[in-house]
């Protein structure tokens, strides 16, 4: 099953620049300080969590740090698929974005194993895609982490996660979100 998911994701990644199935119908705009950075569409019957800029603190180190807006998407009645977008402040290039990903992947999944990386274009913009597997709460997960190079020195980091046993139809939904990605600058 896992191999099927990976291959399905891989095949669909190749078609990201083309149109995916039209199951992503609600456009959403990611803004930072009132500036629209990019937009994507939320699939039908998915829930969007918008978040916002804030500061969180490590209770052990007493070290507050700023966090950019994180937008999370998941099916309304299921938690086996998840997708998140963030455009971190001060991360200007794809290489910086990859380093940013390295610093968050240990929180997202345990024991991550990268199964493949590729360079592609998403929404007409250069992007780097990292696919892999890992564990989270004793369940295997497939993850697809993407760094998309936005104009004006910003990147968009998108992470799509499918837990083992998830409905394969979610792959289409996730790819539809990528297909709807557009820069707004």
């Amino acid at each position, binding site marked *: 099953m896992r191999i099927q998911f990976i291959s399905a994701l891989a095949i669909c990644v190749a078609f990201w620049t083309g149109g995916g199935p039209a199951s992503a119908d609600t456009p959403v705009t990611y803004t930072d300080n009132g500036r629209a950075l990019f937009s994507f569409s939320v699939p039908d019957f998915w*829930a969007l*969590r918008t*978040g916002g800029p804030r*500061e*969180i603190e490590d209770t052990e180190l007493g070290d*507050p*740090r*700023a*966090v950019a807006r*994180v937008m*999370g998407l*998941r099916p*309304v*009645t*299921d*938690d086996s698929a*998840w997708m*998140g977008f*963030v455009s*971190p*402040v*001060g*991360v200007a290039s794809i290489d*910086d974005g990859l*380093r*940013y990903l390295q*610093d*968050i992947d240990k*929180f*997202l999944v345990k024991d991550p194993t990268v199964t493949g990386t590729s360079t592609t274009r998403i929404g007409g913009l250069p992007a780097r895609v990292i696919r892999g597997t890992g564990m*989270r*709460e004793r369940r295997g997960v497939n993850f697809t982490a993407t760094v998309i190079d936005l104009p004006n020195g910003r990147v968009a980091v998108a*992470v799509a*996660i499918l837990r083992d046993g998830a409905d394969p139809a979610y792959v289409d939904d996730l790819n539809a979100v990528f297909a709807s990605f557009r820069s707004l600058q």
Partner: protein
Amino acid sequence: MTRKLIKRAVLALGLGAASLTLSACDGVTVGVGYGYDPFYDSMLWNDYYHDVNVDIDIDRPDRPRPPDGRPPARPVPPIAKPPNRPPVSRPPNRPRPPVARPPVARPPIHRPAGRR
């Protein structure tokens, strides 16, 4: 006949209005909602700004470095600890007077007592 018809119509309309009013109290939401969301919380957390030193919180001064070397030895407290002594010998066991003891198992609080 007409009276009966009007009565029935009023009853039917009233019941319909009542069922609509009652059903309005019920929510239409279906699903699990946003409860525990581990991936969202994880994506908030990152160590990136530790390594790159981006000026994203401008107002905060740099953290001072901790002093090098080992911390100094702790001073000896002015009041010395009492030396370990053997415990004072206990008095010999005596027969104890009979004392009323609380019941072993008390009925739990907040429970209505049975009828007596």
